[in-house]
């Protein structure tokens, strides 16, 4: 492994978070309160959970993320009343896709994060980092 890779592996599992119009402010709020979580967590924001493609989750793992966390709208979605059901479908499809490609389905985690759920988010990041550390790196390339 190169030095860069070593540093990164030491820093902990790499997590991609998909946030939404609802959960994005919740994640911002965690920062505003200076609550800490792993800097290996990167966020890509989308308007709504229902617009996330399962193929993106697979792409992220294939490219080197150790896990993907969908910070979902839950029941609060301003766009779609059935957003929670749609999101469950997307997550299930994505997990099936991961399994087909030889990745553990636990590498995808989804939970609702509300616009002020700063502490929830932190807790999920800690727990998910621990889960992924146990699973080990995707060792991708």
């Amino acid at each position, binding site marked *: 492994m190169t030095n*860069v*890779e070593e*540093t*990164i592996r030491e*820093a902990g599992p*790499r997590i*991609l978070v998909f946030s939404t*119009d609802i959960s*994005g*402010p919740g*994640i*911002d*709020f*965690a*920062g*505003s*309160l*200076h*609550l*800490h*979580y*792993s*800097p*290996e967590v*990167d*966020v*890509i*924001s*989308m*308007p*709504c959970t*229902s*617009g*996330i*493609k*399962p*193929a*993106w989750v697979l*792409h*992220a793992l294939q*490219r*080197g*993320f150790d896990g993907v966390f969908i910070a979902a709208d839950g029941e*609060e*979605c*301003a*766009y*779609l*009343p059935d*957003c929670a059901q*749609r999101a469950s479908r*997307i997550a299930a*499809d994505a997990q099936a896709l991961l399994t087909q490609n030889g990745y553990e389905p636990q590498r995808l985690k989804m939970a609702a994060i509300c*616009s*002020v759920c700063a502490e929830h988010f932190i807790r999920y990041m800690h727990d998910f980092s621990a889960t992924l550390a146990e699973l080990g790196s995707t060792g991708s*390339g």
Partner: protein
Amino acid sequence: MSEERRIGVYVCHCGGNISDYVDVAQVIGAVEDEPGVVVARAAMFTCSDATQQEIIDDIREQELDGMVVASCSPSLHTETFREVARRAGLNPYEYTQVNIREQCSWAHTDDREGATRKAIRLVRAGIARTRLSAPLEPVTVETVPKTLVVGGGVAGLRAAFGLAEIGLEVFLVEREAELGGQVGNLGAIYPHGNDGRALIARLTRAVGERPNITVFTRAELVEKSGSFGNYQATVRVGGEPGERIQIDVGSIVVATGFDSYEPEAGELGYGIEGVLTLPEFEQLLNQDGALTFNGKPVESIAYVYCVGSRQPGGHEYCSRYCCSTAVHDSLRVAEHSPDVRQYHLHRDMRTYGKNELLYSESRERGSLYIRFADGEPPAVEKLPDGRLRVTVRDLLTEGEELAIESDLLVLVTGMVPRQNEELTGVLKLPVGKDGFFNEIHPKLRPVETVVDGVLIAGACQGPKSASESVTSALAAVSQSAAILKKGSAELDPLVATVDPEKCSWCGTCQEACPYDAIGRLALNGKQVAAVEAAVCKGCGGCVPVCAEEAIDLQGYTDAQVRAMIDGLLQEVAR
């Protein structure tokens, strides 16, 4: 394609909010040679006028066709920088905001190296997205020229009147049987000693005379549906089950106020006869003539400040109004009963702004101000003759213990957030750590919430005086006007699009859209899906259901998301 782009990248120090925790120079160094980047610069404050002008100059001189600003949350400055792009002649949708403050520097204040590495990744992802951005034109939606005001205190009343004056139709919903809120119970109020009840009576009359204001008392907002510019609100009138009324409105102003802090039994003698909260004392002062309590003339009064405010572990904030109110009260007492002795026991006096003059006047009229230490509140006991003894260590005489005998003790109580779970649930209002409603940004967007078209005003947002409450009410009025007066609002063109080459019409996307934004179109001899941009809400719900991968959400296209993921992982890519 990427070689053809000309992108400018601007990384903000945000004073030190970013640069104290992220090595900005290292970020610039890591991204300046990315494909497509022609300018990469740091700035102390990218949002400052000077830097905005520099960016505009760059866009023009370097013929930039894309722009990335790495600074605070997109919820704060996306519009600022879209405007910068517009002014320079760059399509505003060729710009990407990268959040390296809330989602990087502030979240990793303990790890400069980690935060710097992350900032580099995030900026790379932003550049990757911008390389694939396209110029877009805004979508226009019709807005309903009506506003619902929730809460009929001084803020709600003034907002209702202001909205009506600019020609909007207003529905004012007040939970109690009477309008007026807290000010409706007050006598002379600071700064000018006007009568609170008279002020409310005047406002209520003005509201009543407006044909375009409908007032519902004993009423509450129980449901809200619809979307920005056109909400359907359900108001329940006359308690449970009551009558339910449906109203269409373009915006909602929440002005539900505060509650007064209720001391615990025994807290600073609360419960002993003669120990009063500030609202109770206000009621006593509304009597005519010389001040009496329980039929006996009052000869001396002690005040203890910051009760329920500035309490570590409890209500930690300053309630703003209470110092000025208590000082003003002491002047009212001095006016009617000049011989009453008055002792003010405080941790700090915060008669800010012009109210400082009230404080000076109160001292000139004989009030004594005694400062005690934070952790050493006065002790209160009842004397056999029915009077009170308040014992306090005076900080200025190096902790000398003073015993003050008084007829009354006023606990200068602060403001606490009002219990309003049902409303919070219906409107999805963000509640801050202190329990008050949260604005998007205290300086830049002080009355807007994360819910588009739902505004907050008055003391529901945090402690405010009556005049501060009215100021914010008027801000909510002008913000509503900005949304509703034109009859239409411009919406992000970040909507779904269909690639007719890939689409073979199966109807799945149409079923997935509850807004009926997707129709069927005959094109080049085949049936394809087509999105109506003004109806599309831009959620992307149709994107993953398309088996042909023919649908993309503008700004979040398949190619852009994949490129962002690749950008985030560039350092380990091989």
